[in-house]
């Protein structure tokens, strides 16, 4: 937490406040202890040899056949080093895959938050439509998935207490899923150097109890959800002219599209995720759906990142049955 405390406590044992952070800490301390022992061993050997075999000492220096080279000794210290390394490699890799390719939470309930980074601020939009800048309010125990993009250069979303970090790339979506486990206020840093006020691109993640978060959301006043905004934009940008189910234009129907495999004109298949939808709006000729003429115009330069995210949220919300925009 950001409040003052014992400085050593804060630095040596930084707050662990997400479902993954204590698992990362276990690995960290296991490595600190192991490597510490290795350092100790080497330093003791250095010291003992330095004293015992200092020039002029009367230590036994009888040469032996293996004094200058000993394959068994070389193998003898390589194998434990290699085995130790492989253990740490595997431990770290398993945790990493859990972090970046996470299983769905048990209750299947993930709160999706849109994140737009720009020089030098963080902009968030909650699923209820509430927006905030630099601060992000979350509920303890509630799994969150961030869908992040940048308007300019590369930034990086870093919350040390959660042990998570993900670069935020311009014109590309990256995602990050995590579950806060402690109530409190935690630092949010931009970790990738992004220019003049890089060190000012910071904020706070405020983790509250679920009722407190609901109260906070309610106090922010009436807002439209990203889906509702997206539905409006779907008509105002003219998307519905071709993509509505009753349209006479031969264009893909978007209902139930999200998350499904899409066969492309070039013979490959792509999953209809947020990046695919984004590219289809801005770079429609990049991935043309099989069986449709490539007549979609590009909206590059006409539509903001925030609006693309809203349109994506709307398209994501369209199920097979629900074919009419609300």
């Amino acid at each position, binding site marked *: 937490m950001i409040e*003052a*405390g014992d*400085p050593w406590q804060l*630095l*040596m044992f930084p707050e662990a406040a997400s479902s993954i952070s204590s*698992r*990362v800490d276990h*690995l*960290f301390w296991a*490595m600190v202890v192991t*490597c510490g022992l290795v*350092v100790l061993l*080497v*330093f003791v*050997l*250095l010291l003992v*040899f*330095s004293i015992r*075999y*200092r*020039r*002029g000492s009367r230590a036994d220096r009888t*040469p032996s056949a293996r*004094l*200058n*080279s*000993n394959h068994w*000794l*070389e193998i003898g*210290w*390589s194998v434990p*080093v290699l085995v130790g*390394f492989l253990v*740490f*490699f595997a431990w*770290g*890799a398993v*945790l*990493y*895959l859990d*972090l970046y390719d996470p299983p769905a939470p048990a209750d299947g309930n993930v709160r999706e938050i849109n994140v737009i980074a720009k020089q030098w601020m963080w902009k968030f939009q909650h699923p209820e439509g509430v927006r905030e800048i630099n601060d992000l309010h979350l509920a303890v125990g509630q799994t969150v998935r961030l869908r992040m993009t940048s308007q300019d*250069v*590369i930034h990086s979303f*870093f919350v*040390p207490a959660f*042990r998570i*970090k993900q*670069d935020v*790339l311009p014109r*590309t979506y990256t995602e990050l899923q995590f579950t806060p486990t402690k109530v409190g206020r935690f630092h949010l*840093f931009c*970790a990738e*150097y*992004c*220019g*003049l*006020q*890089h*060190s*000012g691109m910071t904020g706070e993640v405020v983790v509250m109890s679920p009722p407190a978060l609901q109260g906070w959301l309610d106090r922010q006043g009436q807002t439209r959800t990203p889906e509702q905004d997206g539905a409006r934009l779907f008509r105002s940008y003219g998307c519905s002219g071709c993509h509505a189910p009753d349209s006479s234009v031969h264009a893909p129907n978007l209902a139930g599209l999200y998350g499904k495999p899409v066969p492309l004109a070039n013979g490959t298949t792509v999953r209809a995720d947020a990046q695919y939808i984004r590219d289809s709006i801005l770079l429609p000729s990049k991935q043309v759906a099989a069986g449709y003429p490539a007549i979609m115009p590009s909206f590059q330069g006409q539509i903001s990142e925030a609006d693309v995210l809203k349109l994506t949220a709307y398209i994501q919300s369209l199920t097979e049955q629900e074919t009419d925009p609300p």
Partner: protein
Amino acid sequence: MSALSRTDAAEPASYLNAGYGLKSWLLTLDHKRIAWLYFISITGFFFLGGAAATLIRLELLTPAGDLLSDNAYNQMFSLHGIVMVWFFLIPSIPTTMGNFLLPLMLGARDMAFPRLNLLSWYVFILGGLFTLTAVVAGGIDTGWTFYTPYSTMFSNGAVLAAATGVFIVGFSSILTGINFIVTTHKMRAPGLTWFRLPLFVWAQYATSVIMVLATPVLSVTLVLLGIERAFGIGIFDPALGGDPVLFEHLFWFYSHPAVYIMLLPAMGVVSECIACFAHKRIFGYKVMAFSILAIALFGFLVWGHHMFVSGQSIYAGVAFSLLSFLVSVPSALKIFNWIATLYKGQIRFDAPMLFALSFIGLFLIGGLTGIFVATLALDVQMHDTYFVVAHFHYVMVGGMVSAYMAGLHFWWPKITGRLYPEMWARVSAIIVFVGFNLTFFPQYILGWAGMPRRYHAYADEFQLLNVFSSAGAGLLAVGYLLPLLYLIWSLRYGARASANPWDARGLEWTVSSPPPVHNFARVPRVEHEAYAYDQPQ
């Protein structure tokens, strides 16, 4: 130097008094004089980069950004990185001691291509001038990593001039590398087989291979960066249809092997010092030689470990992590072998040995924390924090610069024909060791606690350790300034050095100190293995 030589009639003929005047130095083809040209230039760059570091550490004494403006701070760490990496660390040992010693160690009269050797220094200076121009003409604020699209489309600094400087200096590396490779292949004295070469030569050779193979990738990348910045042709900026992560791949494909360009020569120097001051053949010579080659080879396959949180495929991340662990094994082997060399040795603790032992300790810590950042889940926390800063300073400054100091002191009597004041050198070695640890160890803790790097202002709880770090930096500065003083002093007042003041083995110690112009009056014939400390010289 030349003034000194003229006043001293007793001085025997050597490369130092073979000619006087600026022209005899600036147009020299003698590898030993070219080494001096590099010594002087990189020392200048070292203290320039050090001055930037001093300002950085002063700014970080307090959490608020108060001493420097944010723009000035960003320029300082960029200048520090660019100058230290490309104009000090990469050329440091190869162009100075490598240039001076390679022909001597091989029993040759000069490099294979003396003119190319001189040209590479002029190219180096040209690159340096471009980069210094960038500093004067508006500065550069991209960091030494030049990440796109910031560097191509957003930065207001003199990116093109700085990138051009780095592009040019790359050719200097390539020319030096080619020269070293050919010299090692073609100029070895009779009897000097590959497995009789000093490990210093193996290290220079492997380094040269990396220079020749990796540097062109950096050159191409910088050209692409320049094209995008100057003409707006989209290569890396997604707004122009490019891919910023592609830049990261290309940049690290050079810049990771570049770490080994810095490190391998250091390992070579330390091997020479440990063997000499333990008065014993290096333990596991062949393992040491092959581990140098293994590090050079594996070093090309690990660049993706700089990108675990960049959005590259997580499975690529897993592969790069595994390869990064594997590249650490030969490094670990080398540390064990140096320790084993001490066993049953006749150990002396002259200044070069103190610096070499510092290298082992600091490189051990730098290497072990390297496996922390190679561990995927830990790197997520540590990437772009002070943990990484501490890690690579332990390897490059604690390791590489300590080895540079070890080598400089070890061969100083050979290079200058003079002895330096031993006591001051030992004091300097100890100050550097203490100052270094005080500066950089706290940064590990800062990084683990989450302090991001390249921050001009930082959260209050990080201040305590930053104060320690800045205090250590002051001590470190003293440790680095001292040798500048007493080494220059020794040029005039130091006692005369004999041909072999350390009772060392190796062809360079068979010629007088300083060596004659053509090194060897007769081509030597090599009868022994390297480090034949059981044989009389």
